[in-house]
C-alpha cells in the first residue's frame, strides 16, 4: 500500500471552552487526498475538533487551545494569516448556509474576497467549481436566481462549490448530509468520492454507514478523547477499543 503525505498533523491538542475541556490530548496524522471520517456520540467534540483546522474556534471567545496543529508543515496557530488559512482549508456546514444572494454571487463571494476582479476569470471559476460540485448542469441557466430558491440538497452542493471556488487544499465537512434526503445524500457521497482525487477531506458524520461507504480512515471520539483511529475497514470490522466497538454495534451513543 502506498504511503500518503501527511496533510494535517495534530499533536497533543487540548481545547477548553472556559473551564470545560472539550478535547483531551488528541494526536493524529491526517493523510493527503483521503477521506477521514470522525464519528462518535453527540457532544464528544467532533465539530470542535474540525473547527480547529481552519481556526473557526477563534470566533468563540471562551475557547482556548494548547498543543500543535500543522498543515503542510506550518504551525497554524503560529504567526500566520488566518484568512489565508481559511482560504486553504474550506468548510461545509451541517445546515446549508447559502448567502441570500444569487447563485453567481454565492460562488463569486470567495474569489472576490481574495481579490479576483476579472469577469471572465470569475466566470471560469464559477463554472469550474459548480461542475466539480456536480451542480453545473442543474443551475447553469439560472445563475442569477436567488440561491434560496434551490432545494436543500442543491443548496448544500452550492455550499461545496462555494468552498471549492477559492481552491482550497482541504475540505472540512460537518455532518454535511444530516439535513438532506437520501437521494441528495447519495449525490454528496458520490461527490466526496470524486473530490478526494484533488482534496483532502475530513468529514464528521453520525451515520455509520456513510463513514463506512466513503471514508478511508475513521477516528472515533468519546468525551473529547480520540479512542480509535485507523483504516475504516479495520475500525469497523475489528475495533481495538471496547467502547468504540459498542458504539459501532449500536450498543450506546
Amino acid at each position, binding site marked *: 500500500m502506498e504511503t500518503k503525505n501527511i496533510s494535517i498533523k495534530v499533536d497533543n491538542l487540548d481545547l477548553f471552552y472556559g473551564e470545560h475541556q472539550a478535547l483531551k490530548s488528541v494526536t493524529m496524522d491526517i493523510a493527503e487526498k483521503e477521506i477521514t471520517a470522525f464519528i462518535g456520540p453527540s457532544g464528544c467534540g467532533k465539530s470542535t475538533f474540525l473547527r480547529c483546522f481552519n481556526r473557526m474556534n477563534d470566533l468563540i471567545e471562551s475557547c482556548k487551545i494548547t498543543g500543535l496543529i500543522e498543515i503542510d508543515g506550518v504551525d497554524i496557530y503560529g504567526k500566520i494569516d488566518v484568512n489565508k488559512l481559511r482560504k486553504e482549508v474550506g468548510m461545509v456546514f451541517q445546515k446549508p448556509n447559502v448567502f441570500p444572494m444569487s447563485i453567481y454571487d454565492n460562488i463569486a463571494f470567495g474569489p472576490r474576497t481574495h481579490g*479576483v476582479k476579472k469577469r471572465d476569470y470569475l466566470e471560469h471559476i464559477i463554472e469550474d467549481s459548480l461542475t466539480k460540485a456536480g451542480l453545473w448542469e442543474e443551475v447553469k441557466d439560472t445563475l442569477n436566481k436567488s440561491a434560496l430558491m434551490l432545494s436543500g440538497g442543491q443548496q448544500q452542493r452550492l455550499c461545496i462549490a462555494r468552498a471549492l471556488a477559492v481552491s482550497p487544499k482541504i475540505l472540512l465537512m460537518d455532518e454535511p448530509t444530516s439535513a438532506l434526503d437520501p437521494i441528495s445524500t447519495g449525490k454528496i457521497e458520490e461527490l466526496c468520492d470524486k473530490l478526494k482525487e484533488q482534496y483532502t477531506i475530513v468529514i464528521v458524520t453520525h451515520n455509520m454507514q456513510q463513514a463506512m461507504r466513503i471514508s478511508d480512515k475513521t477516528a472515533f471520539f468519546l468525551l473529547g478523547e480520540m479512542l480509535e483511529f485507523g483504516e475504516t475497514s479495520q475500525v469497523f470490522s475489528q475495533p481495538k477499543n471496547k467502547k468504540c466497538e459498542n458504539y459501532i454495534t449500536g450498543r450506546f451513543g
Partner: protein
Amino acid sequence: MGGFFRVRASGSNSVLCERVGSFSFLQSWVGGVVFRVVFLVCALFAGVAVVSIFVFLVVGGGQAVGEIGVLQFLFSSEWGSYGIFNFVLASVISAVGALVVGGVLGVFVAVYICCFASGRVRAILNVCVNVLACMPSIVLAFFGVRVVVSALGVFSVTGDGSGIVAVSIMLGIMIAPTVAVLSKIAIAGKMNAGGSGGVGGARGGSDSTYGTARALGLSSEQAVFGVVLPASKSGIFTALTLGAGRAVGETIIVLLLGGGNTNIPYAPFIPFRTLSSNIALEMSYASALQQGALIASGLVLLIIVVALAASIWLFSTQKTISPNHILGRASIAKICKRLSQTISLVLVTALTAIVGYIFLQGASHISINLIFGSFQFSGAPTLLSSLVTTLMFVGLTLLLVVPIGVMAAIYLSEYSRPDSPFYKLIDGCLSVLSSIPSVVFGLFGLVFFVGFLGFGVSILAGCFTVALMVLPIVVKASGDSISNVSAEVKSAAYALGCSKLGVIVKVVLPLALVGILAGIVLAISRKLSESAALLFTMGASLGSLPTGYSSSGTTLSVALFALMREGGSAGYAYGAALVLVSVVLVFCLAYELLQYRLNRFAI
C-alpha cells in the same frame, strides 16, 4: 510544500493568489484596524454627547444658580426672583394627569391587543397605536387648542377651557402609544408561546403564563386580569415610567394648552407653566441671568427625567408571580375585559377625530398658492420656505446621524459583548440620550452650537441639535437588525477566508439593510415632528426662503407653532397642519411597511 499562508511567505503556492493576489483593503490588517477604530469612535460619540450635554448645562446654568442661590432657585415659587418651585410642581401634576389618561388608555389597549383582539382588529389597533405614536406634538396641541379647549370652555367660568384638564387629556393621548407599545411587549411575553415570549409567538402556548393559567381552568379574562397582568407588572411599570418621562419633558402641548401664568394648577382651568413650557416661553428673549436660570431649570428637568428612567433599573426586577384575586374574580374580570374593549374604541376614535379634523379643515383651506406662493411680509403667508427648510434640515441631519449611528451600532453588535462594561456604558448613554426632553436638547443646542461653536440661530445649529436627538433611534434600529443577521451565514463568509471587516461590509450590512432603513425612516418622522428643540436653535418666526445653512428657518412643525403663537391667518395653520400630518403619515406608513417586511422575511 509548506508556508503557503505564512504572513510573510514569499513563495505562495496558491494558484489563485499568485495569479490575481491584488491588495484588498477590506481583507487587509490595516483596514481592519482603521475601521475598528472608526467604529469605536462612533460608539464613543454617544457617551461624549451625553456627558457634554450635562457639562454644558451645568456650566451654562451653574453661575446663575450661584448668583440666585440654590435654595432660592429650587424652593421659591417667585419666578420674578428665579424660583422654579411652582414649575416643578406643575410638571409633576401634569405628568400625573397625563398618566391618568395615557396610562389607562395605553395599558388597556395593550391588554386588548395582546389578549382579546383577533386577526384584523388586532392589526388595525396596532396600526392606530403606531400612527398615533408618529403624531407630532404640535399637531396634538393644534387639535387640543381648536377642539378640546373650546369644548371645555363650556365648563369654565371664564369661558377659556385651557388648563390642566386639557393638558392632561392631550398629554395622555400623546403618551398612550408609548405606554401601549411597551406594555404590549411585557404582556405578550406572558401570553405567547416560547416562555420568554416573542411578540410573534402563538397566543396561549401551553408553556406561557397564560396557557398555564387556562390549563388550571380559569376563563380567558380571568387568566388575563388575574394572572397575566399581575405577572407583567414590572414591564407595565417600565412603560408607565417612560410615559411619565415623556409627559414631563413635553413642551409644546403644555405651552399651548396650559396658558402662561406662573401658577400651580390647583384647579381645572388655572393657567400654569411647567419647567419645560417655561423654558420655551422665555428663552428666546431672556437676558443673561434669566437665561442662566432657564438653563439650570433645563438641568433640573433633565435630572428628573433621567431619575425616572433610572428608577426602572432600580425597581423593575421581577419578583415571583402572585396572581391578583380581586382582578381574577369572574365578574370583575368580565368588566375589565369590556373596559379594555371600550377604551380601545376610545383610542381609535380619538385618532380618527384628530386626523379627520385636520384633513377636513385643511382640505377646505389648502391651495396651490398657500403651498408654493412666494413669501411676502405683507401678503398672505405661504408654506414654501418651510418646505424648503424642512428638506434642507432632514437631509443634513440624515447625513450627520446615519453614518455615525450605523457605525456605532456596528461596533456595539460586532465588536463588543452585551455583558461587557463598555457595551453597558454606551447602551446606558444611548437610553439617557433617548429620554432627554427635546426642550433640553434645544437648550444644549443654544449653548453649544449656537453660542459656543458660533453657528448662530441657523438651520445648521438646528440640524446638529436634532441629529443628537435621533441618534439613539438609528443606533437601536441598526443594532437590532445587525445582531439579527444569522450567525450561520456569517460563519460561511468567515470560513471562506473573509476578514471581519469584509464580513461586516459584504454580508452583515446588506442583510441588515431593511432594518437600518426602518430606523432611518423612524428618525425622519421624529425630525419632522420636532419643534421644541428647534425654537431657539433654528428660529421660530416665519420668514423668507433660506439662502443657506447659516440662515434661520422654520420647519413645517415650527411654522405651525409660530402661527398658533402669533395668530396668523387660520387657513395657513390648517394648511400647514394638513401638509405636516400627510408627510408624517407617509413616513410612518413606510416604517410600518418596512417592519412588516422585516418580520415576514426575517433572515
